């Protein structure tokens, strides 16, 4: 068993009568990269703010490195590097002044220059070291934010949506960076992008409405949510007749037109039963009716699908909700 770096037991945070975090318990071992997954307002940031000591909690216990975060606030804060959702940057300072300030603030006792230079190398901000933070691009600002979290060599990094608002190349860079950092840090990161979790995390904790709905290893998460398969097909032909043909194929649970993206074809989302591959029967059925099939691709599981299927697993009564949401999510969440 690994040493426990973060141990949370029956954590509750209440604002008035509203529960932001409702009875959460989990443990993070040393060297793990854990992803907090959930939609906005699920309690991800609140939980992170509690671990870092920014917010208090209503009840429960939170231990970091075996120390209670209230009784040993000072020691715990030295152990954690935190990147909040909005990087805490002073726009009027240069990167150099800022990192030196953070260095002093965290009361570090390393070789200052060497330590800061190392961090700049790791997050690749050495080229903007002398520039004013307010003038930097979003990607650089985010990386300065990560640099700030790394000052003082904390054992634990808590990153709240580290890739939000970055362009695709920067996202890949930041993910690679997180993976590199994961070699010698314990990391908790939050996100609402499933593929991000799959790309960097060892383990996923899914939070919904302040409760944990799943806590699994990343490779298990896909099988955990194995449900009906969906494919998107571009087909030429009159919509009504094509739909009839599609629905007649054995194994098809539902078929819906989602839009016309070019002149003569319409895109359909076809959902099939679990374990049934309908691509071949689909092709022959369409060929027989002479509706040319010009595109076919599987639709990945969006976060909301994963989410709802996990919630559904616990509350079967809500199953009917799934279809309405999943259609929307397939286009939104896919990256």
């Amino acid at each position, binding site marked *: 068993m690994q040493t426990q770096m973060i141990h949370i037991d029956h954590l509750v945070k209440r604002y008035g009568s509203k529960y932001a975090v409702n009875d959460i318990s989990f443990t993070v071992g040393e060297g793990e990269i854990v992803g907090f997954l959930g939609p906005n307002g699920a309690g991800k940031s609140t939980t992170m703010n509690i671990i870092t000591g920014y917010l*208090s909690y209503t009840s429960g216990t939170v231990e970091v490195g075996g120390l209670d975060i209230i009784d040993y606030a*000072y020691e715990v804060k030295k152990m954690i590097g935190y990147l*909040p959702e909005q990087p805490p940057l002073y726009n009027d*300072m240069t990167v150099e002044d800022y990192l030196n300030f953070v260095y002093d603030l965290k009361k570090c006792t390393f070789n200052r220059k060497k330590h800061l230079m190392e961090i700049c190398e790791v997050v690749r901000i050495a080229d903007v070291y002398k520039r004013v933070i307010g003038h930097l691009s979003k990607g650089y600002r985010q990386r300065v934010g990560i640099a700030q979290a790394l000052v003082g060599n904390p054992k634990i990094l808590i990153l709240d949506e580290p890739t939000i608002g970055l362009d695709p190349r920067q996202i890949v860079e930041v993910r690679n960076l997180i993976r590199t950092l994961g070699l010698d840090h314990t990391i908790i990161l939050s996100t609402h992008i499933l593929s991000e979790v799959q790309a960097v995390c060892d383990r996923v904790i899914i939070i919904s409405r302040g409760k944990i709905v799943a806590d699994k290893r990343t490779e298990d998460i896909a099988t955990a949510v194995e449900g009906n398969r969906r494919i998107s097909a571009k087909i030429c032909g009159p919509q009504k007749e094509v739909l009839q043909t599609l629905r007649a194929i054995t194994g098809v649970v539902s078929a819906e037109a989602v839009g016309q993206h070019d002149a003569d074809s319409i895109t359909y989302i076809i959902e099939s039963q679990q374990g049934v591959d309908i691509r071949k029967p689909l092709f022959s059925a369409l060929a027989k009716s002479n509706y040319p099939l010009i595109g076919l691709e599987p639709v990945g599981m969006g976060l909301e699908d994963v989410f709802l299927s996990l919630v559904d697993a616990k509350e079967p009564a809500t199953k009917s909700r799934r279809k309405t949401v999943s259609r929307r999510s397939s286009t939104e969440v896919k990256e």
Partner: protein
Amino acid sequence: MLAIYKREMLSYFTSPIGYVFMGVFLAVSGFIFSLATLQQGVDSDVGTYFTIMLFVFVVVIPLLTMKSFSEERRSRTEQLLLTSPVSLFGMVFGKFLAAYTMFAITYIASCFNYIALYKFGNPNTGQLVGYSIAILLIGAAFVSVGIFISSLTENQIIAAIGTIAVILIFLLASFLNQYIDVYAIRAVLSWISVYSRFGNFTHGVFDFNAVLYYFSISGVFLFLTVRIYEKRRWE
């Protein structure tokens, strides 16, 4: 605490605020000083000068304090401060000390005005020193009021206006006394009045009572600022 102090001092000079404060303070104090003491026919008594200066503080002290906490809150940088190994008191006191350093340095710079007094008149040195101590203490009290008010809002303008209002109340409370008949209210008003305590210094008396009062005002408002942060964390 030292880190926060250093950053605050730096930010006064990387933004125009520090320069504006010093410039306005020195210009206005020089102007008032020459009107109140250096004109033909006025003596070298500095009482009027210092009294007017108290009212100048109403405008210039908010310049120093309006953004101290409100700006941190608006830009979310307070998250960095509150999650670093710094005590709340250290954080508040570091900010206070930086604003106060600006105030004290500028006041001391304005003491160059007195050279003219010594050259052309016979100022009472004891009185000048007494006044200066009182001014420095009142400055501390007002700065901590400003720090407290800026911790209440994210908006610098509201912080500045709030600070102006509270400082004015402190200065003017005793003036209301002549219109109020109820003894209890008068007692309270003259108790909170900064100005009525300043009176003794005007007569050249070093009033320990007043010194203690000014210290308490600073202490109370800094303490309240810490409490605001504790409360916000626990709400």
